[in-house]
């Protein structure tokens, strides 16, 4: 989860695709998607559909951190700044 948070927080408010995240973090799809599902459910990550860039291709999901996700990433990157709600989320 830490790797994914780092990869998403480096991009700031930019959207990125799941496969790019896989390559960047080195996580397999079997690890990445459960994390994305859980983080989206917790409101840390937001997702939206992007139109395909080439004809005949399916639409792709793009992801980025929400404001809460960015704060969470910041808190986990700097343990001294961790507040109670983020500790609870980590647990």
């Amino acid at each position, binding site marked *: 989860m830490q790797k994914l948070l780092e990869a998403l927080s480096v991009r700031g408010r930019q959207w990125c*695709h*799941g496969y790019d995240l896989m390559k960047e973090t080195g996580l397999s*799809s079997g690890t990445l998607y459960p994390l994305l599902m859980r983080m989206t459910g917790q409101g840390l990550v937001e997702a939206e559909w992007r139109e395909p860039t080439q004809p005949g*291709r*399916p639409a*792709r*999901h793009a992801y980025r951190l929400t404001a809460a996700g960015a704060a969470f990433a910041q808190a986990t990157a700097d343990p001294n700044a961790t507040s109670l709600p983020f500790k609870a989320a980590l647990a």
Partner: protein
Amino acid sequence: MTAAVARAVMSLAACGLGESRREWAFAMQGEFEAAMEDGRPLAFAAGCLLTALREMPSQEHGRFVLANYALALGVLIPTAVLQFACLAGSPFLSSGQGGFYAMLTPDRYLADAYSSAIPPMLALWLLLGMGHLRLAWVLLERDWSRVISAGALTVAASVTLVILTGVLFLDDAGVVRQAGLLAVELTAIYASARWHARLFPGATSGNLAR
């Protein structure tokens, strides 16, 4: 070949994710094209299948699918195998010279009766085994009208076998045990049909699911 296998694995993963995760299934399928371009479709698809398998127990639809597979692979198919094994190993059915009982009895008429009973009993055991395999298949397809017809055929074969073994004064403990097992199996299938009807109220077919 790898691409075809990977697509099949992706389809399985999408099915396993169910309705509540449909959007995630589409998201994975969208990224699958990128994995194809990158030359790693199978690894990507296998990961998606793993995700689906992890997600299944947390959703009711997933639990329903897992329960059906457990019933089919854990009960119905082993029972079919057991029935084929009984067929192959039965002293009454497998002896070549008119049957085990026919050899033992001094009564010529009774020996003839035993000998002539072998083919129909053989057919009934085969029918029971095939009926169980058919039940497993249609259960996984959730085709409840065919589940009813396969169940009726299996019950008919089982009852006929019980009657036949009774008429011939054979040791019918094994047949009665199998009939009892069949009753348990049909009860489990009925429960599965009710569960399916509750999950998909508009998609029921056949009387079992009502």
